[in-house]
């Protein structure tokens, strides 16, 4: 009789008998193996698991290149294999060659015996290798579903096709009309275009100011109060899934564990999934080499194009067990009480609220100019704009992380669009179009602000490209969109999602014309600015800039980041960076729309930020 792994770990002193019972209870409850729970719920580190196994006389083997037989592997379900960290590969010498992380898992051994009618020949491999192999060999169907589910279910909401025929015709008609107009009457057409752009700019900016003022009215409003939090009983909390899509984030794994451990939520009710791409050996090794227990389950996402975060999240969704689900990035530091607040808020809100968005901000805000500007921007966006949109019942483009969903509704919506590079913004609009609502919670997740200009432009170009994609997707049928989200939502969507890339694209052109007019005194430009146009343009330039600077100042003032307030003046320079990113995004939208510009994280030198204490 082989000694169960639980006893081996107790014997080696890595577990106490009481902990063993806890793990067993949790394993029964979650229908997973003992080892899976022990390694993924922070009971045993992988290193200690390896030591124990070797002390007990087991030897780990490399299994990635093991031969396998399709007929053999297809008899095992991915979920079952993943939960038990085992997979039968082939039949050899009348035995089933089975890779297992826990060779004492009798349930799986019995499964092999019953399924194949043969005894297993066990090859021991560490749990991450087994996971990798399971997903690689058995995950094809799941990954295809992750990529094509939305496309099959609701092709009009998929960004697989960037431009539809009518959209192409409309774009070329507008461009053609302008070109023809310029040829026929250059002066008047230029003046008209100039005025349209100026008025558009001004309206967009006034709209943002209005949103900010509406949003700022709720500064003192607490979506969830401290008293409500105190009334929460841990026993009544539901299982909460956290998806952590990562790619080459090996440097951040340790930080990630610290951050997850500080979340105030019962450990056994957290279902944390670290989604690692199949080819991301670095991150997998970083997890393997941890000196301390991990608090997440690794899910390996098999290779399939497009290689995007939404595809990984969709894949992770197949394994999620929670009633609620959220996404964090590897470097995120959520407020410790965030999950509880969301649960309380969901309980308070009507049923058609299916998502709660937390505010995002940065822990390394004072690192350099870029991080300061980023903080100004995010403070404005999450503290004023989103509450403003929420109050006015305009579709909220969700932030990249810390959006908390009701699982069943997320699945019903078709989850994230893997072809959209701002899948979050798209999902927010899609939720509104289906009659659902999104709420804002008074909790913040602190992220790492991009502190390197080229990295920043990469990240921003993806966001802007994603906004363009989202706009094009939802504007395929404008009348249909109006019917779904109403006039207010439609106008808000146009000014918020549609106008954002456009303003960044137009901004440097107008600035250039203005500077050429002021500095070089080019007389032909004067022709394009008759008195009344000049009046509007100067008013626009001045008022627009001042208002945007002011609302940014308001936002950091609210956050009490007083030292950043003067940096808001540098916004016009920061917008030029946006413009560079917008042109890059536009180029990519045309030539490689699904390409995911990877943002490098872990560049910040700010260590141990203490920001997520309960405030």
């Amino acid at each position, binding site marked *: 009789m082989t000694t169960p792994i639980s006893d081996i770990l107790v014997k080696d002193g890595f577990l106490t008998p009481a902990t063993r019972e806890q793990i067993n209870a949790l394993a029964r409850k979650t229908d997973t193996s003992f080892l899976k729970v022990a390694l993924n719920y922070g009971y045993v580190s992988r290193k200690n698991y390896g030591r124990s196994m070797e002390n007990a006389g087991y030897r780990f083997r490399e299994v990635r290149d093991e031969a396998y037989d399709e007929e053999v592997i297809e008899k095992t379900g991915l979920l079952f294999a993943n939960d038990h960290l085992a997979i039968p590969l082939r039949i050899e010498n009348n035995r089933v060659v089975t890779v297992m992380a826990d060779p004492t898992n009798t349930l799986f051994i019995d499964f092999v015996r019953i399924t194949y009618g043969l005894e297993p020949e066990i090859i021991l491999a560490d749990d991450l290798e087994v996971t990798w192999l399971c997903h690689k060999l058995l995950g094809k169907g799941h990954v295809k579903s992750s990529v094509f589910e939305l496309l099959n279910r609701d092709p009009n909401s998929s960004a697989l096709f960037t431009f539809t025929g009518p959209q192409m015709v409309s774009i070329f008609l507008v461009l053609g009309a302008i070109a023809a107009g310029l040829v026929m009457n250059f002066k008047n057409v230029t003046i008209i275009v100039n005025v349209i752009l100026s008025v558009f700019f001004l309206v967009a900016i006034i709209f943002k100011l209005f949103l900010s*003022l509406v949003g*700022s*009215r709720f*500064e*003192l409003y607490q979506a969830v109060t401290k008293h409500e939090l105190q009334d929460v009983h841990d026993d009544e909390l539901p299982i909460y899934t956290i998806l952590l899509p990562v790619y080459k984030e090996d440097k951040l794994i340790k930080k990630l564990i610290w951050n997850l451990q500080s979340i105030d939520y019962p450990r056994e009710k957290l279902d944390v999934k670290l989604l690692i791409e199949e080819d991301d050996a670095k991150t997998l090794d970083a997890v393997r080499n941890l000196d301390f227990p991990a608090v997440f389950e690794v899910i390996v996402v098999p290779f399939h194009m497009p290689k995007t975060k939404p595809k990984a999240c969709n894949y992770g969704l197949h394994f999620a067990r929670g009633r609620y689900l959220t996404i964090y990035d590897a470097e995120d530091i959520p407020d410790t009480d965030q999950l509880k607040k969301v649960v309380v808020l969901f309980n308070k809100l009507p049923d058609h609220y299916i998502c709660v968005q937390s505010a995002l901000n940065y822990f390394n805000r004072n690192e350099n100019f870029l991080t300061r500007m980023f903080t100004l921007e995010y403070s404005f966006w999450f503290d004023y704009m989103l509450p403003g949109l929420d109050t006015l019942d305009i579709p909220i483009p969700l932030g990249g992380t810390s959006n908390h969903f009701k699982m069943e509704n997320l699945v019903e919506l078709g989850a994230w669009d893997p072809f959209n590079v701002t899948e979050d913004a798209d999902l927010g609009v899609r939720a509104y179009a289906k009659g659902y609502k999104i709420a804002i919670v008074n909790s913040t997740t602190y992220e790492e602000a991009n502190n390197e200009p080229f990295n920043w432009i990469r990240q921003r170009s993806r966001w802007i490209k994603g906004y363009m994609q989202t706009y094009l997707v939802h504007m395929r049928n404008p009348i249909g969109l109006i019917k779904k989200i109403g006039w207010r939502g439609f106008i808000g969507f146009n000014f918020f999602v549609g106008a954002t890339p456009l303003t960044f694209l137009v901004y440097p052109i107008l600035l250039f014309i203005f500077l050429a007019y002021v500095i070089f005194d080019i007389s032909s430009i004067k022709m394009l600015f008759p*008195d*009344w146009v*000049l*009046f509007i343009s*100067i*008013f626009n330039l*001045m*008022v627009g800039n*001042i208002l945007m*600077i*002011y609302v940014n*100042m*308001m*936002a950091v*003032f*609210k956050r009490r980041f*007083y*030292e950043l*307030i*003067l940096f808001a003046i540098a916004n016009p320079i920061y917008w030029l960076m946006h413009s560079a990113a917008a042109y890059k995004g536009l180029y990519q939208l045309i030539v490689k729309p699904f390409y995911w510009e990877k943002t490098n994280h872990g560049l910040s030198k700010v260590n141990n930020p203490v920001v997520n204490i309960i405030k």
Partner: protein
Amino acid sequence: MHRRTLYLIIITLLLAVYYLFMAVYLHNLEYHNLESLFYSEKSKILFEGLGNRLKVMGLTSPILPFYGSFAFTFGKFYLLSPVLASAVGTAILFYIMANTLTKRSHDDFYLLILLVLFVFDPSLLYTASSGKATYLVLIFFFLFFYHIIRYYKSNTTFHVSIASICLLLLIFCDYKFVWLCLFFIPLVLFISINSLNLSEKETIFRLHQSFNNPALRRKLINKTVAIYIIIFLLPIASVLIFKMLNLTHADNFDYFLDSPYANWMVLADRLSFEQATSFAHFQPSQVSPLVTASIALYCPMIVLAIYLFRHNTYQILTIAAPFGFVQFLQIKYDKIFLAHEYFLIFLVLSLLCIVFRGHRHENQRLMKSIVAVLTVAQVITGYYFLKHSLVAEERDFVNTLFNRTPNDNEAESREVASFLNTLPDNEQILVDDAIAYPVVAFTHHIGRLTLPYQETYLSASEAPERYVNYILIATERNPLTGYTQLNNKYLPAIRKSDNRLNLQKVYETDNWVLYKVL
């Protein structure tokens, strides 16, 4: 809708009708003032004029009162639009104040007091039915202080930024309010100190503690600068932008302040002062620097307001800031009489303080008695101050309203305009509306006037025989003759350059002569 809100809306509507009735009544008694005539004339140019109207639209100042009046222009009733605006605007002021009150207290006594003041106080009646833009100043002044006081309590960005927007609007209602910023500079420091999380309660000790601790000192400085920026950035930047627009469109940064074409106050204030000081019996007592005392006499409620806010030094300083402001105006603009508007801001401020704190006083019977007595006193002082005002328009208002005697101040302008109206439609008249805007306001066909906003004006003034048929000239007796090009010196000068020019005097009053170009 909440029942009280509904009642409030009904009362406001009734009040607006009451003011409108009074405004029309005064209009029929031919009460006019220079400000409303100026706005009427500019509205008329915008609707019926020919030429660069955008400049008139963008550079007429104070810009918000002008737009307020412009918004109430219906048909050809240009003269009524300012009074309609002031009547409706004052009713809105009542609604804003009453709404603030009803949100804080369910005691109808204070609402009644507010209503009594708005119905009977001659100062507020003057605001409502004179056609002047005091109503806008009072609205934004009230909202500015309301949000500042709310900010003290809530410490929210919303209130401080709305206060900033109100300050900005206030400045664009009356540019002199830019000086109010001066008195908020020290105040902001007190506000910052107060908002620091310190155990010490006394302001002076909090200050001492903050300055002697590097971390606190940094925090204090950061916060103080931040509040300065949040409050003052918008007004200052907007003023700069407006000046920039003036520079690009009128080649003068201060066109909106200095030009009689853009701002009615440029000449009206001087005229008022010169007329008053030329009287033999002129008593300079009210020009005394001790204007604070006269404010306390005019508005004894302000003493009660200070009493209600006595517990916080910085809040008392907030209430005291307008005293400093008015005192400053008295010194800076020593050749101008303080308009009634600068007294009325204290009434609004006192009412705001009573709205905030009056109902929370422990002895309500005493408080209500005092407020009732002060309300009666306010009605009396309101009448007295208007009756004895050094500004003729204010005295005229009281005389016209209470004695029901037609006002003949603008009779001459009306007379000249009537004559111009009788001239043939196709004949052009050269008029300089720097001083002749009352005449223009009373004319029926602005299209036949050649005015300075038009490109042809300069040519017409240099070669009138080619462009116009008539020229309206200010006589030597006209008190504003020095502020127009078309005065008694114009004719010899133009004749010198063109000795073939023949002019025939066709109409003459004390202040105006109309020449026909032959």
